[in-house]
């Protein structure tokens, strides 16, 4: 879900922009290092593929079709850091050229879809990709990438005070769940097709790193997201979060800001942890 400008509260979009900038720089450098040689054409062309792939219709039922989002697929074929870089490029072009997502909100959209979404999608594959649960990990990766990024977006909107009664919230979550399952199914189907057509493009993650730490990281992300969602659900959301804070913070602005920042710092740290674990160099 691309968040347009005008939806997020100033402390939220500003914090996310500030958080996203060094993360993008770090991921860009990491992507350059992990690719065998300068692979600008490969990333660019596959980014164009993901864009174009959104036009291919997948039948979901009578008259309805869905489409691929692509973050997990990119992670499975390129690795998480290059996949993030491609997603950042896609989001930037979508925002600038198609006004799909805001410019000030780019930091939020990048964190949701290009960073957390890609990492969450890659994690099951990293853990189970080489085991007999491989097919499940492909499906779960696709589903998680969409689900986590959508929930994060929702959380950010709620923190910003966008009105969302429980009924609307439930419908949104149900829709997210459906999109997530669809993305999982499409991702799995395409990966299986690729394994037949061009097996060399599919990665084989080396087992290693610490699954425990990765689990903790992912759980932290999920808990933070779900926690924010529940706490913020409904018009009293902001007040509920604020009750966790010491009374010394008087100004409303500061309260909102610190509530937002606290949740997001938690998520950001979790992402860094996951990133370190998933990206640790393998011993061959």
């Amino acid at each position: 879900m691309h968040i347009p400008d005008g939806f997020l509260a100033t402390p939220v979009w500003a914090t996310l922009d500030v958080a996203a900038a060094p993360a993008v720089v770090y991921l860009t450098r990491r992507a350059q290092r992990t690719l065998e040689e300068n692979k600008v054409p490969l990333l660019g062309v596959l980014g164009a593929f993901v864009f174009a792939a959104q036009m291919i219709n997948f039948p979901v039922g009578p008259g309805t079709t869905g489409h691929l989002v692509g973050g997990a697929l990119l992670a499975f074929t390129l690795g998480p850091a290059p996949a993030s870089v491609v997603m950042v490029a896609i989001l930037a072009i979508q925002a600038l050229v198609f006004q799909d997502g805001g410019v000030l909100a780019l930091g939020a959209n990048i964190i949701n879809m290009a960073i957390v979404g890609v990492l969450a999608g890659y994690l099951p594959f990293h853990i189970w990709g080489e085991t007999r649960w491989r097919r499940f990990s492909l499906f779960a990766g696709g589903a998680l990438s969409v689900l986590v990024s959508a929930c994060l977006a929702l959380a950010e909107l709620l923190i910003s005070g966008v009105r969302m009664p429980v009924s609307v919230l439930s419908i949104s979550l149900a829709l997210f769940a459906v999109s997530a399952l669809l993305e999982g199914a499409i991702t799995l189907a395409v990966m299986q097709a690729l394994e037949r057509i061009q097996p060399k493009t599919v990665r084989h993650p080396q087992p290693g790193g610490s699954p425990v730490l990765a689990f903790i990281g992912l759980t932290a992300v999920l808990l933070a997201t779900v926690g924010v969602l529940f706490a913020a659900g409904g018009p009293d959301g902001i007040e509920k979060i604020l009750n966790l804070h010491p009374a010394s913070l008087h100004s409303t602005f500061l309260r909102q800001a610190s509530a937002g920042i606290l949740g997001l710092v938690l998520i950001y740290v979790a992402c860094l942890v996951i990133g370190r674990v998933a990206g640790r160099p393998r011993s061959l």
Partner: protein
Amino acid sequence: MRHVVVDCWARGSSLLHRRDPRAKIVALLVFLIALATTSRGLPLFACGLLLLLVAALLWARLPVWGALVRAGIVLPFSAVFAIVSWLAGDPARGASLLIKSYLSALAVLLVISTTPLPVLLRGLEGMGVPHFLLDVGQFLYRYFFVISEEAQRMNQAAAARAASSWQWAVGQRFRASAGALGVLFARSYARAEDIHRAMLARGFQGRFLLLDATRFRRADLLFTAFASLAPVVLRIALDRVSA
């Protein structure tokens, strides 16, 4: 395709088109931030900003009505949330969502309609964004149309083979679409290898060397100053008047 029209607009030659992309980026950011940080007096401020944008569209010799309509792409999404806000008893927030999202989209549309994307990306390079990321963006944009055409052809071919009854066909069509995506991916991957070979064949050493970027001239400085000050001055003036 929708973008072809905007691409055409971007190739104009008005004074606004000729400004340095960095000047336009700075002006855009100031505009967006001024809009985003306003909560009191939003309707009046929004009218002022709309007038600024329309004036800029006229200066750029772009079709004003066409641009206003195109920026409406963001309205369906905002309208949903606006209606929910209104029903939840907060119509002011609903209006704010609609106004801010629309004006932001219009401002971004103005910039992209007066600056071809490759030029805009080069401008960002001069502002500290990692060049690897921007190079990926350039290639993405360059090959988006090529691969979209391939995707469209595959879509048509798949549709031509689709069975009429959907019950048993959903699974098959799903697999067929996945197969089509797999083939498209493989072709894109192969194309990337072709491109890489073509780059090596002309002596590529690892870095993209560029012809000289545009220089930041005095006209660009004047434009940046004026375009950045306008929303700020407007905001301060409105605050004074309403106080």
